[in-house]
């Protein structure tokens, strides 16, 4: 069973999050965000993405610094392997989103976390992307996420953290539900 219920410090400012939730309930227009990324081709299958600005709380916002992500494909795809594959970045995005949610929910429920490790697998039949078999989809046929969590909580409480994190995760929703994607040129 849970040993410490009075105080937990997972480094999440839950009061600020709850304050923001309350404020945005009163003014839903401020809750309209736009996230952005920029991507530039380097050579071959290598490209570089950067994120810097986004829109939210009714104004343009800016990260503290510009973050960059290399993406490429491994040598067995006849590429130079200058970075993770885009699908691995998707797995990383899912894991980061779920883990952030676990920390926030744990903080809210006053559960002290000690270690949270996720390992993810996305199964894919590459006959899809290679155009070998039109019946095979391009994307993952399924994703499994395995969490190892050490925390001052019962196994059921830890499971409930992970379940609640999925319920509130943006990337989990993006992956499990369809999204309209519009790609324009010039």
């Amino acid at each position, binding site marked *: 069973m849970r040993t410490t219920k009075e105080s937990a410090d997972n480094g999440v400012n839950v009061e600020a999050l709850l304050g923001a939730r309350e404020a945005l309930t009163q003014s839903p227009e401020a809750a309209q965000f736009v996230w952005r990324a920029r991507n530039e081709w380097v050579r071959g299958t290598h490209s570089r993405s950067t994120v810097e600005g986004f829109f939210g709380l009714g104004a343009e916002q800016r990260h503290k610094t510009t973050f960059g992500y290399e993406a490429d494909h491994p040598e067995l795809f006849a590429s130079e392997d200058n970075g993770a594959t885009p699908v691995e970045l998707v797995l990383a995005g899912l894991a980061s989103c779920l883990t952030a949610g676990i920390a926030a929910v744990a903080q809210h429920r006053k559960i002290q976390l000690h270690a949270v490790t996720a390992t993810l697998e996305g199964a894919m039949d590459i006959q899809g992307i290679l155009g070998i078999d039109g019946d095979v989809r391009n994307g993952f*046929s399924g994703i499994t996420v395995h969490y190892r969590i050490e925390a001052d909580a019962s196994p*059921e409480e830890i*499971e*409930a953290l992970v379940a*609640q994190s999925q319920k509130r995760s943006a990337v989990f929703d993006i*992956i*499990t*539900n*369809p999204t309209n994607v519009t790609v324009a040129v010039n």
Partner: protein
Amino acid sequence: MRTTVVIIGAGHAGLAMSHSLAEHSIDHVVIERGTVAHSWRTERWDSLRLLTPNWMSRLPGAPLTVGDPDGFRTMPETVAFIERYAAAIGAPVHTDTTVLSVRPRGDGYLVTTTQGTWQCQAVVVATGACNLPSLPPFATRVPAGVTSLTPRDYRNPSQLAPGGVLVVGAAASGIQIAEEIQRSGRPVTLSVGEHVRVPRRYRGRDITWWMDRVGVFDESYTEVDSVERVRGVASLQLIGSPEHRDLDLNALTGLGVRLVGRLAGISGGRAQCSGSLPNLVRMADLKMNRLLARIDAWASSHLAGDEIEPPHSIEPTRVDASPPLAVDLTSGEIRTVIWATGYRPDHSWLDVPVFDRKGRIRHDGGVAAAPGLYLIGMPFLRRRRSSLIDGAASDARDLSTHLASYLADPAAAGPAAPLLGAA
């Protein structure tokens, strides 16, 4: 015509309010568009029985015990029960009177009906939470040739074309309708969103008996994390049946029902299903087990061991490793879609600036954000019990007390005045 209070709706909630106002000697009328218990009479499917046992319909002022206290009333029995209650308390019901509009007028309201107008000081909205089916926007994209129904139009499987049926929603209505349609020989696909799983019976008692005793139903709207969230929670996955049987997702898959995730959209004739089904069923199992653990803890300190059966665990919900992510609505396999996606109230006749941005009446535990306007008979209005027939007594008691103090001094009892008996 003049009266002090107009109650709109002669269902269990409006009638309980009528009784409570009479106890305060407050002059009032109850306006009813049809006859007493109109919705129960006309807007329910044939096999439906109440989810709560008969003993758990404790309306104020007229203890009516009818039939087996542990049984579950059919709809005709429910209608008869509410009719008898209306007669027993002598409620001043005006039937076949449809409200056309309610507007502020002077210090009160003008209620315009098909049978004339009433000027009154206060209005109690008791028209219920289930007036109109609530469908997702993409429900209009069901292809031609596939029939769309809601539980309000659905009566029994024989009205459906032979062939497959997609039931959307796995709260009480969805699972009950899915079961009887599957049993009729029409293969059912059930789209499962967030749901609340509970066993019908636990340790030899009905689950609602436990929830009543343990105090679950008495949790106040002021105590919960997010009142908005709890007011939107789906009904318990339960069926009221003579044999007190369980009806959960495992029972349905055992009958051959196919489970898919929450419907996310319809595109090109294909219903798209969310991949979140494993999490939703796990979450429902965890929540159910938390409730059962709470019951066990209460039982060990309040009941002798021989009064109840020992604790037992309940099988986790089984789902396929890879449930289908789409249902083709154009192949001819699915002939009917039933949208068991909930209801919303219809307050279109209420011409009072009291609505929030989502069109809901702003209120504090039933005291609406307009002087002299009250709401009763809504999910988690003041407490979890408010969602049940059994909740009308305490809500009517609290709100009639507030209403009486409002009439005595309208300036003193503001919309957010603290309510008596909140717990």
